[in-house]
């Protein structure tokens, strides 16, 4: 069984947010509630401030703290290494949101982030929190895929409705292979500078493993012991203290 993982090359990432937009369309999300977004961070003062950014999907941890705290066992890890939420079991207690060190979980029943409130404009039927004018066809509450119902927590699924349909033994899911394109997660498929790699971390010959090895892939917040399955690489084979994504640092200009 595959263990799906993602590598994000920050040397290529331009912070364009195409991934967030693709995610929003694919997963019926509202603005500000995308399963993945790009975090910006500045440090330093004028005239030499540093602006950095990195996309943050769910890390699909090997040892997910969100899963361990869930009182109803609604959060679970699939055989192929993805952390999913069973919306039929979730009671919306938000314990997982407290436990997740990466802040990638969403409870959307509170104050809306944009006006007008689109949930009022496109009122949901039954349990569903809204009724988007464009719907991605999949709805699978047991996997937390589709339109979010009221009173539950949601998160990135690595587009599980797509990747789970990939042929067995697939090592790489990328746009390069037209036969596999349909199974590529929306953010990976959309990324204009192809900064994302997606594939099987258990397969030693996969592209993700090659990139992690060649460019010294790093995981975020290693001290938490969550062991994310999303790796970040910066550039030129050096990790930490190495070169900084092209044109983004004052050092490169010097």
């Amino acid at each position, binding site marked *: 069984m595959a263990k799906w993982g993602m590598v994000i090359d920050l040397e290529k990432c331009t912070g364009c947010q195409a991934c967030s937009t693709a995610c929003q369309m694919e997963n019926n999300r509202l603005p500000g509630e995308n399963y993945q977004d790009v975090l910006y961070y500045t440090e330093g003062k004028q005239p030499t401030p540093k602006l*950095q950014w990195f996309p943050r999907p769910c890390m699909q941890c090997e040892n997910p703290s969100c899963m361990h*705290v869930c009182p109803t066992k609604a959060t679970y890890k699939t055989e192929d290494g993805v952390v999913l939420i069973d919306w039929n079991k979730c*009671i919306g207690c938000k314990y997982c949101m407290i436990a997740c060190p990466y802040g990638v979980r969403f409870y959307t029943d509170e104050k809306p982030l944009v006006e007008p409130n689109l949930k009022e404009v496109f009122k949901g039927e039954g349990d569903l929190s809204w009724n988007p004018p464009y719907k991605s066809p999949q709805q699978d509450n047991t996997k937390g895929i589709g339109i979010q119902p*009221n009173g539950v927590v949601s998160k990135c699924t690595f587009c599980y409705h797509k990747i789970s349909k990939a042929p067995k033994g697939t090592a790489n899911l990328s746009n390069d292979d037209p036969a596999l394109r349909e199974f590529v997660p929306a953010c990976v498929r959309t990324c204009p500078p192809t900064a994302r790699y997606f594939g099987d971390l258990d397969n030693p010959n996969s592209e993700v493993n090659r990139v992690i090895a060649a460019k010294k892939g790093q995981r975020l917040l290693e001290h938490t012991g969550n062991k994310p399955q999303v790796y970040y690489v910066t550039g030129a084979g050096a990790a930490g*203290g190495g070169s900084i994504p092209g044109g983004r640092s004052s050092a490169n200009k010097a």
Partner: protein
Amino acid sequence: MSNTPSPLKYRPLRPQHPLGIIDDACLPLRAPRYASCRACEDVCPPRAIHVEDGGLRLDESCVACGRCAAACPMGALGLPGFTMPEPAQEKRSPLAVDCWKVPAKLTPEHGMRVPCLGGLSTGRILEILAGAGNRPVELLDRGWCVGCSAGGPDGHPSRTALKRACDLLEAAGAGPDWLPRLRDQHLPANLMPAAIPAAVGEATLSRRSFFSALTAKAAVAVDRIRPLPGGEVRRRRGFEREPVLSRERARVLWALDRITEGGWLSPPSGLFHRVDVNANCANHQVCASICPTGALAVYEQGQRSELMFDTTLCIACGECQSTCPSAALQLLPNGYAAPGESLPDRPTLLVTFAERSCVECGRNFAGLGEESLCPQCRKRRNLASSAFRTLFG
């Protein structure tokens, strides 16, 4: 807000079977997958009832003794045949409670017959006492229980419930004349039929009135003990469950209130539980989401959020204490049992937090100190700054 139990959703557990359940009241059905209550399963003599994902399963081996109903802390299970028939007012002789297996002619005159004395919960015993007028109540021990399919090696199955009923009566100030007792009146074992006979010729209420009578009593009982404050009802937040009062508790309260004619000396020890919150509380509100009876709830009051606790609803299941992320909550079963201690207002305010809106996302959160970011935004900020160092040095 009223604590009147929701409209009846009684349904038989098996087609044509007398044992019924109120889904709304059963903890594992109200709180699927985390409520650990298995009281009915543990007590069932033939091990016929099973708590499963999505419902209760009753096997054919059920002997319809009603012991599961007596054990249920919520009074969610019910079996007809345990309710008082019309009380015979002027009789001074003791009211004997006998089992259906005993031939009717051997039951003392004006006695009451129930399917099995093990099916009498503490509430039911008190209810019989309250309905018996001034007659003392005697549960008969026919000496058959050890060999009975509904009994077991422990002998007469109603000892525990009886002991508890006596404790509650004493605590409520009832004199010794009032206390129900067990009386040995053994019969030859060869008279005992194998199975509990069907309810032919027994004076029972119809199922519908059996449950609706209790519904009416429940609201009265609790409001007599400690009414909810009137005035404006404050909004509960989020998706906490509708509160539900244990029907067993309603019975106990109603009966005690009636027996003492409203003259409670003190709240009976062992009836009301208490929850304390210490300074670790960070307003996660997980306890309120998880409380299966709705005893814990979050109210919004202007710019404050308040965690409230209604002791009349709490059945001390302990889910709140074991789930609290900051271990800030302590459940004290029978926490109001100190002599002379009176019950607190209901609901009781446990902790209150001032709310402000997050400068980044604009959502309301309960802030500690001068914090201007909500926990989610703070987490994002911290992640960004730590990743900045990890990734870009």
